[in-house]
């Protein structure tokens, strides 16, 4: 007889706990539609990209090892990339190497983008057909990966970086990896 009262209350409590957990995660800024990267804990994919025409030497996976760094997938046609650009500039200024993968962009547009907003990238590779971005499992633009000094992928951020993400996640992780 008492079971009749206890069971619904327990069911409700379980449901409330599950929903409450997700609500808290969302409240903390988690986007539940973001797909976790399959590359976390694995070496960055091997690639070798040419430069944006007449702009540096390009980018290959060998460039990533040595020091904790960021790999940023961007394009001039992508408005959120423009929005996060000042934060990349700040990070670069504080000594973080940022490597750019310029995704499906026209060379002239990419160069105009960098000329207008500044170039925070240590090196940039031009991924004209998007094949290298696919190796990285990229599906939303921009995306930013944190790579440790051994060239292992530690973190992936989908979408534009916000000051919040940089302060709460990216910088602490870089500091920890630099130890």
């Amino acid at each position, binding site marked *: 007889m008492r079971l009749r009262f206890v069971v619904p209350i327990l069911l409700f409590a379980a449901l409330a706990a599950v929903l409450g957990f997700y609500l808290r995660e969302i409240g903390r800024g988690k986007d539940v539609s973001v797909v976790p990267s*399959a590359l976390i804990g694995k070496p960055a994919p091997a690639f070798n990209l040419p430069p944006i025409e007449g702009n540096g030497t390009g980018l290959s996976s060998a460039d990533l090892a040595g020091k904790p760094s960021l790999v940023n997938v961007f394009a001039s046609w992508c408005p959120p990339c423009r929005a996060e650009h000042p934060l990349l500039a700040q990070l670069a200024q504080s000594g973080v190497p940022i490597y750019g993968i310029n995704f499906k962009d026209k060379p002239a547009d990419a160069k105009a983008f960098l000329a207008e907003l500044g170039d925070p990238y240590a090196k940039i590779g031009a991924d004209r057909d998007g094949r290298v971005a696919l190796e990285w499992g990229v599906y939303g633009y921009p995306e930013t990966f944190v790579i440790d000094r051994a060239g292992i992928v530690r973190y992936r951020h989908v979408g534009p970086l916000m000051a919040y993400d940089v302060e709460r996640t990216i910088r602490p992780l870089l500091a920890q990896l630099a130890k």
Partner: protein
Amino acid sequence: MKRAVLALLLLVATQAQALEPSERLADPALEARARDISRELRCLVCQNQSIDDSNADLARDLRRVVRERLSAGDSDQAAIGYVTARYGDFVLLTPPFKAATWALWLGPPAVLIAGFIAWLMFLRRRGAAPETPLSDEERRRVASLLDQSK
């Protein structure tokens, strides 16, 4: 007449395809395998469409990669593995059965079975408790209440 024409048109109509003619492989057997695989892979941009259905840029790139792998001699499993190694299990529209997904697979049948058991218990309890007949006192009270309402 109009109805007949409409019915006929609906009969011959096929589902719209996102696949562009230039993407097709020349070998029909390989192409059929590629289509089957594409129907099982999620487009991460639209998330509830397969890459076979989706017009998104990423879906087209993934369709191309699947065809590339099959043309290179990969088995279906190897071609799917190539995509999941880069995009994770989430690209599979049918998730694999493993530690992280057992609740997903077993949850719905468990709830169904629990509901069935609760229903059986309810039926049994109802059958086990026969109604007790009214006492003489209660009968008189019912009669007087019915009289009052006339």
